[in-house]
C-alpha cells in the first residue's frame, strides 16, 4: 500500500525558495498569492497491507531519512 509523507520546514524556519518563488509570482502579476512555502513530498510503496503498520513504517523512515528534525517536520497519510 502507499504512504505519502509531507516534509515542511518548521513554521519559523526561513524558506528562501518559497520567498523567491513568491517574488517571481508577484513580478508576474500574481499578487493574489500572498505567500509560498516549499516542502518535500514522498510517495512510499510499502509491502504491508495494514494501514497502521504502513503508517508506523513511514514514520520510522521519515525520522531516519526523509526529514531533518532540526529544521523540518512531517505529516503522513496512508490509503
Amino acid at each position, binding site marked *: 500500500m502507499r504512504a505519502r509523507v509531507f516534509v515542511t520546514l518548521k513554521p519559523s524556519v526561513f524558506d*528562501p*525558495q518559497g520567498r*523567491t*518563488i513568491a517574488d*517571481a509570482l508577484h*513580478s*508576474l502579476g500574481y499578487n493574489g498569492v500572498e505567500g509560498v512555502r*516549499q516542502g518535500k513530498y514522498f510517495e512510499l510503496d510499502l509491502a504491508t497491507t495494514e494501514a497502521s503498520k504502513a503508517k508506523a513504517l513511514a514514520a520510522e523512515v521519515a525520522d531516519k531519512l526523509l526529514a531533518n528534525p532540526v529544521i523540518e517536520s512531517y505529516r503522513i497519510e496512508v490509503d
Partner: protein
Amino acid sequence: MKFAVIVFPGSNCDEDAYYAATAVLGQQAEYIWHKDTGLKGADVVILPGGFAHGDYLRTGAMARFSPIMHDVRAFAERGGPVLGICNGFQILLEAGLLPGAMLRNRGLKFLCEQVHVRVEQTDTPFTLTCRRGQVLRMPIAHGEGNYFAEPDVIARLEANRQIIFRYTDAAGEVSDASNPNGSASAIAGLCNEARNIVGLMPHPERACESVLGSADGLCILESVLQSLKAGALAGA
C-alpha cells in the same frame, strides 16, 4: 563581431564568457541585464552559466520569464546564433527554445571536473570549425545536468541530427562510466531544429586557455565567428 552576454540575477559565469569573447577571442562584448530590452546590435547571444534566481524551484524556471528573453527569442527566430552554457542551457530548456528538461545528476552531487565530449554534428554555428567525432576536453560544473526527454523526442533529436555533443571517454567512446550525470543518450549538448540555438552543459569558456587545463573549448567560440563571417546564417 559583437557578443551579448545576458546577465540574470544569480548568473556567475557572465564575466568568464565576456572574458573569453573579448580577451581571448579579441571580439566585442556587452553585458545585458535581464530586465533590459534590446540586444545592442549583438551578432551572437550567450546565456552564461550560474544559478539564475538561485536555481530555486528548478534550474532556469524563473529566468525564462525575464523581459530580455523576448528579445532573445526574437533574435533566435531571425536565425541569430544563441549559445546556452550550463545554466544558460537549462534556461533554454525551461523557455522551450530547446526540447527536454534537466534532472538532478544521478549521483545527486554537484560535479566539477574535466570531461570529454564528442562533437556529433558540425553544421551549427557553434561547431562549424570542429571536426565531426572530434573529442573535446572541457570542465563541467553542475548538480542538474541529467538530461531527460521522452523516447519519441530523443528519436526525433537523433533523426534531425540535433544532438551536438555526447559525453564520451578520452578515446571518444560512449560508455556508462563516461556519462557523468546519467544524461539520456549521453547527451551533453543539443540544438533546435533550425540549428542556430545550441545548449551544452560543459563550459567552453573555461577551456579557452591551456593554463586553465584545456583550450579545446575555443573551437566552439571560433566556430561562431567563422559562421558569422561566412554569413552562413541567413537573416542573422
